[in-house]
């Protein structure tokens, strides 16, 4: 095997030949030892390399600990091993991983692998025959490795040396894994809070670009998170378009620059389907790590319902104070006159008629207020039957005749109209309300009732030649207690409830009510609403 130079031995000097042979053996032995040494070194280096590769591979504390122990078992030819890590904010040591067989002699470690302090752990390991304890880190947190041989064996020193050389790495890797776990846990918990919140939570970076939007936000804005990322908050929320605030007055930018949180500020955003959603927001700076510029977080709560209720209450108070007090004052005045003045019978009768008139208005107001409390209740119960528009109009004409005020109504209906499937009483209420309104604002002009078929709907229109409703007010007059400014100035009495009631009744039938210009361009208003046609196939099981 070994290539020794084959110089011929000097035959004449046998002792020299022996010396040379001796030297050759000696050199061969030295070479063998050096080779084995090199092999061992290479093995140890490779073992260390594999261990550090394992440490760098991440994973949970338990996974990493077990993998490391399995590696060490083989390295040190051990029967078993366990890792103990100091608990956070505590002196107790807890077993985080074990591998191999339990130690003989000392008995198993205490229940759940827990020790009261490092000394307890050390003294337990000291009781294991041949066992060794290696402190991977002495403090913050203390990490101990216990390793023991089989009952009749002993640990391999080369392997233990590798473990000792790598002990700081081991300690750091395990502590790192634990921190990582804690971080992941914390992130999960915080994420659950943000994702579970019913308020819209939105985070922007230093350039006001959206970096986070929670599921409640997705729902309320009607967008997917993915399509919001990187867009500006003004673009995503649509604050300016919804009338919340101008982009230049963005509260997110404000807190980001000033650093002072805003506890409460109302605004409006563009909700799902383009509707305006009124929001109460609180704003704060998002702390940033390192050199990154700070972003900001907004928590927005939908207060549309609360706002609507507030508006209703305000409108109610204003209307009641005006509409109740005016007839009451009249009644009181006439009643006092009747009581204290000597009036002739003709005058007395006139006063009583006026009292009757005023009580009529009061009664109508009370009826309307009661109506809207019913209408606010959802769902409205309808008693639907099959009927036709001409019969509904005829009923209205009958009522108007009885009141002696049918002279201005023009009925302009197509000759053949399909059946309707509606609550006759409720639709009658809508018609008489709309015609009454038209007559109130244009007492001497004709009111035209028309209709057209727009399957599966019948579109009914009521046109008047009154003062009209300003474009900007058309949506608002359909809300309770709202009256357009030109009507408020006209001194024509009203509660602002009529159109709202009509709208709710039409919507209860599934239809829509809207206010338009008259198609012939003349001044006045067209109110158009839709009602469902009778569809025999669908009537069963319908409400």
């Amino acid at each position, binding site marked *: 095997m070994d*290539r020794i130079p084959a110089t011929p031995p000097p035959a004449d000097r046998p002792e020299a030949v022996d010396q040379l042979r001796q030297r050759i053996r000696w050199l061969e032995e030295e070479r063998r030892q050096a080779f084995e040494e090199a092999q061992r070194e290479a093995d140890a280096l490779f073992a260390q390399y594999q261990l550090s590769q394992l440490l760098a591979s991440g994973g949970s504390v338990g996974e990493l600990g077990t*993998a490391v122990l399995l590696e060490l078992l083989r390295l040190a030819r051990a029967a078993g091993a366990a890792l103990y890590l100091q608990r956070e904010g505590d002196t107790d040591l807890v077993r985080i991983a074990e591998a191999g067989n339990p130690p003989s002699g000392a008995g198993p470690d205490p229940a759940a692998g827990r020790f009261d302090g490092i000394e307890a752990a050390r003294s337990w390991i000291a009781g294991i025959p041949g066992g060794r304890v290696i402190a991977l880190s002495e403090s913050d947190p203390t990490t101990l490795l216990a390793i023991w041989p089989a009952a009749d064996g002993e640990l391999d020193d080369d392997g233990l040396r590798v473990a000792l050389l790598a002990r700081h790495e081991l300690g750091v890797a395990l502590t790192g894994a634990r921190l990582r776990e804690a971080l992941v846990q914390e992130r999960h918990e915080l994420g659950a809070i943000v994702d579970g919140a019913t308020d819209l939570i939105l985070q922007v970076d230093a350039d006001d670009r959206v970096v986070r939007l929670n599921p409640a936000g997705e729902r309320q804005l009607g967008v997917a998170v993915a399509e919001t990322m990187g867009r500006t908050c003004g673009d995503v929320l649509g604050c300016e378009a919804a009338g919340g605030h101008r982009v230049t007055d963005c509260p997110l930018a404000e807190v980001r620059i000033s650093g002072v949180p805003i506890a409460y500020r109302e605004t409006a955003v563009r909700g799902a389907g383009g509707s305006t959603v009124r929001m109460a927001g609180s704003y704060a700076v998002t702390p940033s790590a390192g050199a990154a510029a700070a972003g900001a977080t907004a928590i927005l709560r939908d207060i549309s319902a609360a706002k609507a209720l507030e508006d209703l209450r305000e409108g109610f108070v204003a209307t009641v104070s005006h509409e109740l007090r005016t007839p009451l004052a009249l009644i009181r005045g006439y009643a006092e006159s009747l009581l204290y003045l000597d009036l002739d019978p003709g005058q007395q009768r006139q006063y009583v008629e006026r009292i009757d008139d005023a009580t009529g208005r009061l009664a109508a107001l009370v009826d309307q207020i009661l109506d809207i409390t019913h209408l606010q209740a959802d769902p409205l119960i309808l008693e639907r039957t099959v009927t036709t528009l001409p019969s509904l109009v005829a009923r209205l004409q009958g009522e108007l005749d009885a009141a002696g005020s049918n002279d201005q109504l023009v009925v302009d209906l197509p000759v053949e109209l399909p059946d309707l499937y509606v609550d006759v009483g409720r639709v009658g209420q809508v018609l008489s309300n709309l015609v009454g309104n038209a007559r109130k604002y244009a007492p001497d002009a004709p009111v035209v009732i028309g209709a057209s078929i727009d399957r599966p709907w019948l579109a009914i229109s009521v046109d008047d030649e009154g003062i009209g409703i300003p474009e900007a007010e058309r949506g608002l007059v359909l809300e309770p207690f709202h009256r357009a400014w030109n009507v408020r100035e006209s001194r024509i009495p009203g509660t602002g409830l009529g159109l709202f009631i009509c709208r709710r009744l039409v919507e209860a039938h599934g239809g829509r009510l809207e206010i338009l210009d008259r198609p012939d361009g003349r001044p006045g208003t067209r109110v158009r609403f839709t009602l469902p046609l009778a569809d025999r196939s669908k009537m069963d099981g319908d409400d």
Partner: protein
Amino acid sequence: MKRRQGGDGAPSSVAARLRGTYTRPTVSAPATVTDVLDAAAVRAALGRCRVVVERHAAWLTRLDAVLGDGDHGDNLVIGFRAVDDMLRAMPDETLPGDLLRAVGHRLVAAVGGASGPLYGTAFLEAGARADDAVTLDGATMASMLTAAADGLARRGRSAVGDKTILDTLAPAALAFSEAIAAGASPQTAIGRAIRAGARGARSTRPMVARRGLALRLGERSAGHLDPGAVSCLLLLRALGGR
């Protein structure tokens, strides 16, 4: 999945064989290995390693992405390119043993990851066993393969069944030695060695890893082929000219 067909159909047949969907081709393997190997034959065999590793690098890396750190294919490509470049620079009269030892050193130095030192050890041990022989006969080759497997087991502290390179190399070395001892030609012995190695590589699929990075996966390492065992089979096939 349809894999790109190489000129000799090797990529699909190896993959198919390991998936258990392989049907044996009717064409017999080319007789590139004669009864003895000289330095030129050893060089040619080592050159084939580079080609095979390059062809299968993506597959090996994909296998390694499951169990390890996803660089096995790339690492071996780097290693065997370095080996190829080195061999070209070596004089023609270099002995087979010296060639193999040089390959071992080059692999240890050039390959990142554990596979470099492990394959390097195998080539070093084989080269040491070849010593200063000018040609390698069947018995020498058997002893070289056995030495390679033993050296790899020692360095990796691994045993058959640990889900490593050794699961391919050890049964292949054993099959080769047994065939030679029974009087078979090196040609026949190589065929048996590769079949045994393929069985060994396939056997790593259900194993739970006991060595290497796959340790951290524990039970989850079962159900996947070991990338080392597969690359070892590829190298054996390349060396054997199959």
